[in-house]
């Protein structure tokens, strides 16, 4: 049972809307304002990252009766139109995070949301490092800079609760079900390390369609993989107790 003192966070990722899906997802959102205080979208909102798909996604989430916060996923970058897609979403009233933070007033509280697409590289002990070829160094460095930006954002944001929204996973646990060989392409422990250092109440991500819903960082922060095929429903709802721990 949810109580009045809960902050209810609806979340879903990897909806991968293509041109044939116009109106489909919107229908599933009917009544969401009764079930949740805010909706978070964990990236891979489009199939090919075209502008037409970006506009379609924007229309699906336009002017919903609750705040919507989103990050983009690798599919949304596929056509190099990520900035344009983010622009369409913002025009539709969606807050789009790009390695920064936003404060959403919802459920009578200030919710700080930090995040962005994130990136891969692997998990402690089994990951790439900033050594060798330029291409490998670039990959690891890219993830490291993202993690650093999130850590700064988590420290800067003034809010009662802090949630991290990502596309890539910060932990291995929520990848369970995916082939081990592709873990380095699914996330990076650097993201978890940054969030553990700065602190947060919850981390949401997508990307790993065959992964598992529930996991935890080494520091004990709850992680939820909200990829649509994982949660198997229109959106998941997570309730944070308002008066903290």
């Amino acid at each position, binding site marked *: 049972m*949810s109580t009045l003192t*809960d902050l*209810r966070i*609806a979340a879903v990722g990897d*909806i*991968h809307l*293509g041109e*044939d*899906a116009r109106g*489909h997802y919107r*229908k*599933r959102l009917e009544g*969401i304002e009764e*079930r949740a205080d805010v909706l978070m979208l964990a990236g891979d909102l489009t*199939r*090919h990252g075209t502008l037409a798909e970006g506009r379609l996604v924007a229309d699906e989430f336009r002017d919903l009766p609750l705040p919507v916060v989103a990050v983009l996923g690798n*599919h949304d970058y*596929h056509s190099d139109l990520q900035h344009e897609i983010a622009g369409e979403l913002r025009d539709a009233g969606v807050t789009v995070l790009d390695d920064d933070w936003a404060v959403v007033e919802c459920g009578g509280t200030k919710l700080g949301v930090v995040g962005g697409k994130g990136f891969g590289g692997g998990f402690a002990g089994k990951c790439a490092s900033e050594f060798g070829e330029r291409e490998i160094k670039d990959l690891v460095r890219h993830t490291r800079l993202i993690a650093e930006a999130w850590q700064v954002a988590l420290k800067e944001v003034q809010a009662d609760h802090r949630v991290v929204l990502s596309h890539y996973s910060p932990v291995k646990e929520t990848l369970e079900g995916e082939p081990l060989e592709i873990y380095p392409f699914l996330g990076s422990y650097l993201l978890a390390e940054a969030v553990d250092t700065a602190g947060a*109440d*919850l981390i949401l991500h997508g990307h790993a*369609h*065959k992964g598992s819903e529930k996991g935890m960082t080494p520091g004990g922060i*709850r992680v939820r993989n909200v990829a*649509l*095929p994982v*949660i*198997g*429903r*229109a*959106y*998941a*709802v*997570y*309730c*944070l*107790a308002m008066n903290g*721990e």
Partner: protein
Amino acid sequence: MGEAPQYVAARVQQALAEDARTNELGIRVDIRGDQLFLRGQVSEPGQRDRLGEVAHETAPALHLHNEIRILDASAPGEDEHLD
């Protein structure tokens, strides 16, 4: 000698990921003899059909079994309390 089935499966999987009609990364492709199996889940029947189409074009000599499931994610589920 025909090509090893592992390479054909890899090529089909690559095509499903890279073909603009599909761009689907999480589909499992298995080949047994002259049978090609696609498994996984997507949210649209149209996408399942396109995946079958692209797989068939990539390996036209194989008999296709499109076992991809359609995910019905219409209803919101139960809430989880994190306290």
